[in-house]
């Protein structure tokens, strides 16, 4: 009966492979085949050990207090067998894993290169054409992509579950990821190296689109036709929303609603009114005035925002009442 339960469990576990995220590349399909092999081998092993265990304890349960047990000390052939068979299986798993890993690390020379920069707590992307984006980036389908990555502050890790790949992102040096997406769609990006308070909010989206759509996106000026407040709102969503609410409620930093023209009390005891110059200074040189009761956690955005984006952001904050 227990064997039945186990085989049901195993059946469930095999179905669970459908819990793997959508397969976005050839390598992802290879990882999933490896996963199936590991899962089935493991399940057989578990059934053997746990099934044998349950069979033995039920069959040889104590019948009376003066049961005599067999004196069996060892059996060298069995020891050899249950060392050698697992060893061979482990070597197959190792070899297969190596093969798959090697495909993941295959950086072809004609890759489309995209730079990614991690920073508490968002991702920035830069293309060779000069196009840049935050929180979201586009790549063309069926094209080898190389992500060249670094970090502005602490360790992060770039995880693309749909491609079954991840790579730590390290300040002071470059690391890289290679993949060739073969299915259009939107893919989730996670940060998988703990990086502080809002680690779990350090998300991004990757859009895999057709070549034409990709080129069109590359050409378009994201802020064309937008009002100043709308430009500011866009910047807010990409870079500020992780730490600041649009209402007055505290997140990591203060909420933005009602901030403009309010009286700010600072850690050193001084105070000032939050005018345009104060907000500008807070974005570019955040350490200059730290509001009382908050940690000096805000990073500087010096050099990361254009003059238009900065004005837009200030107008957006002013618009929040």
């Amino acid at each position, binding site marked *: 009966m227990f064997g039945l339960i186990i085989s049901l469990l195993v059946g469930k576990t095999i179905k669970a492979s459908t819990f793997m995220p959508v397969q976005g590349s050839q390598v992802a399909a290879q990882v999933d085949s490896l996963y199936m092999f590991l899962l089935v081998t493991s399940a057989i092993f578990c059934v053997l050990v746990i099934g044998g265990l349950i069979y033995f304890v039920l069959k040889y349960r104590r019948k009376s207090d003066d049961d005599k047990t067999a004196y069996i000390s060892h059996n060298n052939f069995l020891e050899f067998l*249950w060392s050698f068979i697992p060893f061979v299986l482990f070597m197959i798993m190792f070899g297969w894993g190596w093969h798959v890993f090697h495909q993941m690390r295959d950086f072809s020379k004609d890759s489309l290169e995209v730079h990614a920069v991690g920073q508490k707590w968002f991702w920035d992307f830069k293309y060779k054409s000069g196009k840049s984006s935050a929180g979201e980036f586009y790549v063309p389908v069926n094209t080898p992509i190389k992500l060249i990555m670094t970090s502005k502050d602490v360790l992060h890790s770039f995880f693309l579950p749909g491609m079954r790949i991840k790579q730590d992102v390290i300040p002071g040096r470059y690391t890289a990821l290679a993949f060739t997406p073969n299915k259009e769609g939107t893919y989730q990006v996670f940060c998988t190296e703990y990086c502080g308070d809002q680690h779990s909010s350090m998300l991004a989206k990757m859009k895999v689109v057709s070549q034409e759509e990709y080129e069109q996106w590359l050409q378009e000026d994201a802020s064309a036709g937008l009002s100043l407040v709308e430009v500011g709102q866009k910047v807010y969503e990409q870079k500020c929303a992780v730490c600041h609410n649009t209402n007055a409620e505290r997140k990591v930093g203060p909420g933005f609603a009602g901030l403009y023209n309010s009286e700010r009390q600072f850690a050193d005891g001084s105070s000032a009114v939050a005018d345009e110059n104060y907000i500008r200074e807070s974005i570019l040189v955040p350490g200059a005035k730290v509001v009382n009761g908050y940690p000096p956690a805000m990073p500087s955005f010096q050099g990361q925002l254009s003059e238009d984006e900065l004005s837009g952001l200030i107008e957006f904050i002013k618009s929040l009442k």
Partner: protein
Amino acid sequence: MASSTHNYLNHEKGLWSWLTTLDHKRIGIMYMITVLLFFAIGGTFAMLLRTELIAPGETIFGAQLYNQAMTFHGAIMVFMVIIPGIPAFIGNFILPLHIGAKDVAFPRLNLLSWYCLIVGAAITFVSLIYHGSDTGWTFYTPYSIETDNGTTWVVLGAFVMGFSSILTGVNFVTTVHKLRCKGMTFFRMPLMVWGLYSTAILQILATPVLGITLLLLAAERILGVGIFDPKLGGDPVLFQHFFWFYSHPAVYIMILPAMGIISELITAFSRKTIFGYRAIAFSSIGIAAVSFFVWGHHMFVSGQSELAGVIFSLLTMLVGVPTAIKTFNWVATLYKGSVQFQSPMLYALGFLFLFTIGGVTGIMLATIGMDVHFHDTYFVVAHFHYVMVGGTLMAIMGGIYYWFPKMFGKMYNELAAQLSFLFIFIGFNVTFFPQFVLGAMGMPRRYFDYLPIYEPLNKISTFGAYMIGFGFLIGLYVIIDGLLKGPKASDNPWGAKTLEWQTASPPPHENFLTEPEVTAGPYEYR
């Protein structure tokens, strides 16, 4: 041997006699109290974490508190519960009894090791005044350098606690070599002693590396020396190499003595000699030896070279072989035995069940192409808990119930103990099995908040955690009730063959009234 009224518990009286005792049994009991206390604190943090994760978004506390609770849960459970849990607590009590010695080789060092743990733990808790620490128990740089709170205190606390581990290791190696009674050859030692011996070697060789690493990290925070901080030209990945060079052997410091306890329990409750004594003994040493060469499997995606990753994957596979040998030998021991299902045996069987799942998922993670997807997801969290809780903690619980009559001369309520096991075992699987699936689905670990698709499985997991919590509350009742009202236990209630059962329960001050002499192996059930 008639049980005398004189024993180690009433040999001296008063709190001071305990705080200055050199008796390994009393020091073992002091470790028991501290470890169980820390376990209660670490467990409370676990309940809070799971409660926060019952739904996406903020439920009971914000991101900052969650990260601090996560750090304290990890640091307390690893440094104050699992590492001292078996060697310093159960091992301290049992090892000299197992080899027929009066005490350990260096009783004063033994007492000092307990004070190291207490002082280290106190320093760790001082950090709470400075808003705790939010780095996770792994203290990865450069985050751990720049985070603005009590991390320095936690790191220094772990450094001091390391000495507790080193002193215990030195003591046990010497004790095993020098203090075995007449006729106790190496191959007549109980397998528990082999487990503790291999652990002691690891404690001596690996813990100093952690000590130096943590000291460097503290120096980096206080003085800004620039070893790990990239802003000063340091290498943050170097920290990971140093850290795992200790912390990988450390997981064997946690599991090897647990495997020792399981060998004792399986033989005692199937009344049968162990199958493959030498295979189990040598596989302990084998695991200890290989464990020093596998640390890089924690760093497959850290940016180390592809070649390094592949070599570490290969070496990690080799750990699987001696581990499989042990598991098969334990199952084979049950063959034609006379199996009884008292609570210690239930924990041993629970160990085999959970450790097997923990083991095969460990092999999956060692497979480098697979690990890249699973790395830093809940798959790793589930695997780690299957081996550390399903493995080590199950063994600690089994060991407590098995040696409880020897330690206190009293029996506990068997029915309540079995009920407690049932809640813990089922609750454990309900908590952690769904986390394998969450990991496959890609849910990263150390996430205070998660995407809505992960919600149903997280709810199940939190429900399971409450079951475990309830199970441990019953366990607490069993222990307190047994201590206060337990009926008197006989010298050998389980009919086991190892030496500790040949003396009185509880044992006299110097363990044996007459020095024992051994003429046969430890499991002569004929």
